[in-house]
C-alpha cells in the first residue's frame, strides 16, 4: 500500500491549506445558517399597529367601543379636523388611515338603518386591510346583536362585543402526530455544504492528481515492480477515502451543533443527499484534477468553479430570487439538483412515494452527473498520460 500511503502523505502535507478552507467554510456556513435561522424566526407573525386618525362627530358608547377595539391594532394620532392638515398627514405617512364617524351614526345604526363610516387611506397600503377587517368584524357583530335583541342599549351592546371579540382560538399545527423539527438551519447548512465540500475536494484531489500526472514520477514508478493496475487502484482508493472523510467530517460537524433537529427521517435524507453529492463532487474534483497543470492554478479554478456553481444554484441566494434563465442554466449542474433536493427534504412532512419521488429523482440526476464527470475525467486522464 505504498501508493495509498504516499497519497495520504501528500494530503497530509496539504492539510494546513485544506484545514483553513474547512474551518473558514464551516464557520461561514454556521454564521450564515444561524443568520438565516434568525431571519426566519423574525419572519414569523408578530402584530404591528397602523397609525390612524379617528375623527368622530359624536361621543356615544358604540363609537367609544369601536375606538377601544381599534386601539388593539392601531395607534391613534391626534390631528386637527382640517382637510389640508389631514391630506398632509396622509402624504407624509403620519397616518395611513383616517376614519370619520358622521353625526347620528350610532342612533341610526341602533335603529337598524344602513349607515357608512367615511375612510381616507394611503393608496395600496396593505396594513389598512387589517383595520378594515377589524372595523367590519366589530360592526358586523354589532349588527347581529341589534337585529336579534330588541331594545338593546349601546352600553349592553358594547359589553357583548367586548366579551366576544376578546375570545381567542388557540391553533396548534400538527404533522402526522410527529413533533415538527426545525429544518431551516439544517437546510441552510447542507446547502452551504455544496460549496465547502466541493472546494475542499477539488483542492485535495487536484493536489493528488498533479502528483499522479507528473511525468518524471510516472516514469520512475513505471520502472518499479509495482503494476500500473495496483498503482491506480491504490491511488483511487486514496481519493475515495479522502472524499469519504471530508464528507463524514462535514456532516458530523452539523450533527454536533444541531443534533436535536437531526433526529428525524428528514435528516436521513439530508445525509443521503449529501453523500450522493459528495460522490458527484469527487467526480468533479477528479475531472478538475485531470485538467489543471500547475499547483498555482488550483485555487483559482477551485474558487471560480465552486463560487459559480453555488451562486447560480441557489446556495447563497435562494432559488426563488434567481431568474428563470439562471435557473435553467443551473439545472445543467449537479449543485442545482443537490440544493433542490435539500429544499424538498426540508419541506417533507410525509414520507410516501409521491413526496419522496422528486428527492430520489434529484439524487439520481446527481449520480448521473457523477458518472459523466468520472467518465470524462478518465478519457482526459488517458489522453494526458499518452501526451
Amino acid at each position, binding site marked *: 500500500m*505504498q501508493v495509498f*500511503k*504516499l497519497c495520504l*502523505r*501528500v494530503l497530509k*502535507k*496539504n492539510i494546513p491549506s485544506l484545514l483553513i478552507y474547512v474551518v473558514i467554510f464551516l464557520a461561514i456556513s454556521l454564521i450564515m445558517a444561524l443568520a438565516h435561522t434568525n431571519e426566519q424566526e423574525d419572519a414569523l407573525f408578530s402584530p404591528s399597529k397602523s397609525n390612524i386618525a379617528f375623527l368622530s362627530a359624536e361621543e356615544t358608547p358604540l363609537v367609544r367601543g369601536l375606538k377601544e377595539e381599534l386601539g388593539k391594532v392601531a395607534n391613534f394620532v391626534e390631528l386637527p379636523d382640517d382637510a389640508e392638515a389631514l391630506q398632509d398627514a396622509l402624504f407624509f405617512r403620519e397616518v395611513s388611515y383616517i376614519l370619520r364617524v358622521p353625526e347620528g351614526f350610532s342612533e341610526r345604526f341602533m335603529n337598524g338603518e344602513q349607515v357608512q363610516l367615511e375612510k381616507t387611506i394611503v393608496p395600496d397600503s396593505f396594513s389598512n386591510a387589517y383595520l378594515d377587517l377589524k372595523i367590519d368584524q366589530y360592526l358586523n357583530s354589532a349588527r347581529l346583536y341589534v337585529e336579534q335583541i330588541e331594545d338593546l342599549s349601546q352600553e349592553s351592546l358594547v359589553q357583548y362585543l367586548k366579551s366576544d371579540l376578546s375570545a381567542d382560538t388557540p391553533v396548534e399545527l400538527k404533522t402526522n402526530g410527529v413533533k415538527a423539527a426545525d429544518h431551516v438551519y439544517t437546510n441552510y447548512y447542507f446547502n452551504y455544504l455544496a460549496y465547502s465540500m466541493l472546494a475542499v475536494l477539488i483542492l485535495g484531489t487536484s*493536489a493528488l492528481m498533479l*502528483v499522479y500526472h*507528473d511525468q*518524471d*514520477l510516472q*516514469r*520512475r*514508478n*513505471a*520502472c*518499479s*515492480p*509495482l*503494476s500500473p493496475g495496483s498503482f491506480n487502484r491504490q491511488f483511487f482508493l486514496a481519493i475515495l477515502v479522502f472524499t469519504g472523510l471530508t464528507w463524514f467530517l462535514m456532516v458530523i460537524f452539523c450533527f454536533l451543533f444541531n443534533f436535536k433537529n437531526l433526529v428525524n427521517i428528514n435528516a436521513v435524507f439530508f445525509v443521503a443527499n449529501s453523500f450522493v453529492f459528495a460522490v458527484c463532487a469527487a467526480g468533479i474534483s477528479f475531472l478538475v484534477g485531470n485538467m489543471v497543470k500547475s499547483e498555482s492554478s488550483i485555487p483559482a479554478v477551485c474558487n471560480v468553479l465552486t463560487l459559480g456553481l453555488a451562486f447560480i444554484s441557489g446556495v447563497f441566494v435562494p432559488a426563488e430570487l434567481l431568474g428563470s434563465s439562471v435557473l435553467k442554466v443551473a439545472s445543467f449542474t449537479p449543485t442545482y439538483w443537490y440544493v433542490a433536493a435539500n429544499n424538498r427534504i426540508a419541506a417533507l412532512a410525509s414520507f410516501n412515494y409521491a413526496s419522496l419521488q422528486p428527492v430520489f429523482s434529484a439524487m439520481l440526476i446527481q449520480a448521473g452527473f457523477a458518472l459523466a464527470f468520472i467518465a470524462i475525467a478518465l478519457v482526459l486522464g488517458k489522453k494526458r498520460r499518452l501526451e
Partner: protein
Amino acid sequence: MIVRVKNLVKRYGELLALDHLSFTVNDGEVFGLLGPNGSGKTTAINCILSLLEYDKGEVEIFGRPMRPDAYDIKREIGIVMQNVAVYNELTVYENIDYFCGLYVEDKKLRKRLVEEAINFVGLKDFKGYYPKKLSGGLLRRLNIACGIAHKPKLIILDEPTVAVDPQSRYKILEGILELNRLGATVIYTSHYMEEVEQICSRIMIIDKGRAIATGTKDELKAMITLGEKITVESQHITPGQLNRLRALPHVMEAEYKNKQLVIKSGKGANNLEAVLDFIKKEKIQYGKIYSELPTLNDVFLEITGKQLRD
C-alpha cells in the same frame, strides 16, 4: 551477461532515434554510454527499461526478455533518471522509504536499507528536509538514494550529474564506484567524457542512435591515429615556421591560433622532444609548453568529425 541489446530500432516519426543499436553489459562492469545531447542515450535507456515501445530489436536483462510487465526483472534494477523524480510533498527520508517500499515490503529491512542509502549519499543531516529546501547537488544525491536504496543488481544512471556542483559531482562519482565495488553492475550515461573516462570500465560512444565505438578507454584511444597533442604558448610564429613544423615526422596537424600553437602528433615516441628541438632551432620564444594524451573527445572528433559537445 547482465544486459544484451540487439539491433534496437526506435523511430519518432521520420526521426531515427536508435539505429540498430547493439551492445552487451557484463556482470560487474561500469558500462558507459557516451554521446552528445540528442544522440539517443536516454532513448536507449528508456527502451531497455520498457518505458518506450521500440520498433525493432531485442532487450534481455539477466538473460530474460525485458517487457513492461517483467516485474521480477524490474525488482533487481535501480534507476536514477536524468530528471530528478522525487515527491516534493515527502521529506528526504519519506521519499527514499517510498521508492524503496516499491521493491521491499519488509518494514524492518526497508528501514535499514533506507538508513544505509541516506548514509551512502551523505544526506544524514537532511533526513527531515523537503526536496524544495535542498540544493541542486543534494537533490541529485536524493535522486540517487531513491534509485539504489533497495540494493539492486543492476543500476542505471542517466546523466545523474547534470547541473551539479563539482563537490557533489565528485561524491556522486565516488558513490557509483563504491556501488560497483559492492557488486552492482552499472550502466552510466553522460555527455561528460571526463566522468565516463573516470569511472567506466567499458565505454560505448553513441551518435545519432548508432554505436560508433565500444571498448575500454585505452581501446577506444587506440582506435584513432592521434597519439599526442602538444600545445605551445608563443607570442609570434611565422607562416614559414608553421610550414616547416608540419613537415616534421609524426606531425599530423599544426595550427597557430590565439597565440597558441597546437600540434597533433601521430602515435610514436619522442614527439615532444622533436617539437622542443624544432623550437630551439627556430629560436621561437615561448611561455608554456605542455603535452596531452588523446581524450574521448578526440576519439569522437576523429570518428565523427565533430566535437562531443557540439
